[in-house]
């Protein structure tokens, strides 16, 4: 009889053979893990850049790093965090768990999946290669120093010599190609490969959020790619898209960038919302409150978020009418987002809460994302934005959303799903240290930025002057950044420690309800022995409670 390669304990294989398997894999779970590990690497880089900036801003007129270096630091930090940390970690989690949650054996296009991963990874390498290779013929600059939205004319050949801007353009463009292939694959998988009986209306909410995120990627990334191509033509073929002297217009870049850039914020946020929508019900021991409104709010966000981009441009002097329109649209997007907040809170209400580490991160998400959302509404008021834009208040706002919201949500996902992917629980004690230090460190970093911002401290400036009352806020921020850094180090230690020493998890350590918990931890290559038939939103509940299944009530 032939041995079963999946159940027989594998003999130790030579390293080259293991490496070969990982490099050539098209398995959605292995690719998911590779996305996540790569994103951890980029998180370390992006975090170091942030820490360096904060150390430079510890006191007035410091010269730890030069002004030029500082410009490179915030550019690389922002670009890294958005394109190479949050995008891939979410792509990784979606890759790993969406097929499992919908009861599929793999993604629709496994090879396209691998293609997307490698595009992302080489995009990241290309961006960071600028540190070594971007001197070009001019010996000017090493890393790009154009900010994460690369406004013209900073990027024009006259102001950006050497090739650093080209590495930025090509790196983000490649990773964008990866994102589009990810999106195509996800939509095809979610629509066509759900398990027997799983209708769209009984699909886990995480699947819904990934579906809408993928739709957004499909329409937001190509315009960005087109704009980047225009920029490359300007730089290398002498085209005039953004060249004012020849009648071109730098404003076109701003519109095209933010037509991508704002949906991108929701592309990053929706998967985190999806994680929260899975974690909160399981640890409140209640079904999600308002599943249908949750789906509608997600789709609503998808559409509205395509029409608010120019709220990033209130300060460039558009007409009053345009300001008004985009301000109004921005208020509108707060409605579906608010509905979600209420749904999560209502799910908690009256639940039997279990304060596990993923639940703590989910609660942290709720609190911090709420604050980020509220300062967002403040900034949607045009005169308010004129005053606060490009100050540290704005930095505080979007870090409450991007870090307090999105990254806390992702952390909830890590602690929730790690046992499934690895077969061992993440250590709870280290997890508690991680959570509390990250929560305290985060607030210590970013709450004070609201104050320094209101006092007039501009973003993207390498230092500040003494005597305007900003010293104390900056020092608090820097201490907070160090604490946050320690918390993230504990997180990485926990990931590694638990891999070797974590408690055995079993198939379903959280007593959860969705299909990924119906198979072994980690799942076999084919995911399920037998594809389950689904009758309700909580198929695993139905299995565990044949006397009182959900589908009788839905």
């Amino acid at each position: 009889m032939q041995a079963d390669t999946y159940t027989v304990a594998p003999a130790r294989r030579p390293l080259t053979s293991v490496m070969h398997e990982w490099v050539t894999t098209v398995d959605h779970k292995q690719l998911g893990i590779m996305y996540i590990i790569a994103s951890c690497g980029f998180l370390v880089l992006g975090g170091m850049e942030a820490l360096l900036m904060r150390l430079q801003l510890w006191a007035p007129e410091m010269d730890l790093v030069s002004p030029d270096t500082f410009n490179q630091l915030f550019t690389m930090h922002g670009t890294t965090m958005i394109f190479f940390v949050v995008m891939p970690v979410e792509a990784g989690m979606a890759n790993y768990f969406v097929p499992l949650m919908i009861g599929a054996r793999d993604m629709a296009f496994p090879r396209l999946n691998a293609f997307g991963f490698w595009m992302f990874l080489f995009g990241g390498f290309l961006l960071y290669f600028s540190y070594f290779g971007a001197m070009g013929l001019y010996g000017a600059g090493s890393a790009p120093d154009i900010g994460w939205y690369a406004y013209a004319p900073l990027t024009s050949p006259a102001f950006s010599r050497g090739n650093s801007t080209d590495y930025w353009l090509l790196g983000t463009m490649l990773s964008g190609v990866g994102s589009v292939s990810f999106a195509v694959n996800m939509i095809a998988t979610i629509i066509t490969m759900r398990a027997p009986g799983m209708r769209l209306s009984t699909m886990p909410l995480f699947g819904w959020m990934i579906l809408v995120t993928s739709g957004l990627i499909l329409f937001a990334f190509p315009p960005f790619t087109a704009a980047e191509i225009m920029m490359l033509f300007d730089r290398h073929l002498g085209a005039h898209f953004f060249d004012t002297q020849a009648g071109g217009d730098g404003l076109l870049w701003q519109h095209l960038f933010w037509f991508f850039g704002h949906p991108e914020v929701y592309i990053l946020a929706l998967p985190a919302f999806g994680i929260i929508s899975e974690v909160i019900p399981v640890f409140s021991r209640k079904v999600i409150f308002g599943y249908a409104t949750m789906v509608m709010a997600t789709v609503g966000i998808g559409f509205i978020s395509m029409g608010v981009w120019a709220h990033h441009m209130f300060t460039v002097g558009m007409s009053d009418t345009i300001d008004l329109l985009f301000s109004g649209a921005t208020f509108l997007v707060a409605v579906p987002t608010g509905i979600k907040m209420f749904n999560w809170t209502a799910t908690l209400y009256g639940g039997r809460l279990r304060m596990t580490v993923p639940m703590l991160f989910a609660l942290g998400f709720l609190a911090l994302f709420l604050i980020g959302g509220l300062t967002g509404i403040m900034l949607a008021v045009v005169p308010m934005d004129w005053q606060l834009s490009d100050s540290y208040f704005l930095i505080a706002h979007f870090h409450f959303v991007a870090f307090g919201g999105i990254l806390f949500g992702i952390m909830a996902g890590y602690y929730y799903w790690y046992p499934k992917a690895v077969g061992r629980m993440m250590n709870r004690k280290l997890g508690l240290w991680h959570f509390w230090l990250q929560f305290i460190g985060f607030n210590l970093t970013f709450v004070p930025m609201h104050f320094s911002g209101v006092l007039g401290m501009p973003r993207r400036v390498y230092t500040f002057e003494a005597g305007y009352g900003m010293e104390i806020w900056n020092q608090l921020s820097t201490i907070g950044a160090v604490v946050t850094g320690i918390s993230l180090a504990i997180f990485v230690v926990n990931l590694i420690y638990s891999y070797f020493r974590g408690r055995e998890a079993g198939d379903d350590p959280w007593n959860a309800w969705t299909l990924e918990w119906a198979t072994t931890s980690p799942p076999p290559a084919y995911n399920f022995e037998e594809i389950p038939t689904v009758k309700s939103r909580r198929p695993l509940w139905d299995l565990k409670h044949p006397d009182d299944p959900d589908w009788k009530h839905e």
Partner: protein
Amino acid sequence: MNAPGASPNQLTAAQAHAAETGETLFADSKKLGMACFLCSESAFFITLLVAYALYLGKDTVGPTPAEALSMPLVIVNTVMLLSSSGTIMLAMKHYRDGRYGQFRVFLAITILLGAAFVIGTAFEWKDLIEAKHLTISRNLFGTTFYTLVGFHAAHVTIGLILMSILLGIQTAGHLSKESPAAELISWYWHFVDGVWVVVFTLVYLIGR
């Protein structure tokens, strides 16, 4: 290895839905994937079109579209490309009915028409560059024109490559009857033609 395969009597939710309603786009992952890809492609072209429209008449130096663009050649070109949409439709009809000989003939005609379009574009560009001195760096018109028309022509060229490969594989007898490849490539070709209709309208009718 005895990893269980999907048991044949189990339909995914989408397949069951398709069996009920006869709606296949949302049950066939390859078709849906292609449709999604074409959506992203249209977002790409819309961006180039918007840039073209926005910069119409903003040039600081000539030549302007009215001075540079001549209609006769491009009209012939357009007729050829549009009729290639018709020939590939016929090819697909024969393909579905199992008349592979005719399928190959019409596919070959489509390829020839598409190739003629690309060659026609090359002659148009040669004239623009040599006689009208319009290059990509000459003025805004040159910038937006060559980018838009160039990306379209690149897509036509990719379509030609795909169709030639399809023709080769089919002739060699390596294309299985269930493969959706022919249909998906025909979708792509129709899409490229559709884009040309918009480009032609904007560049040669409105903008000239």
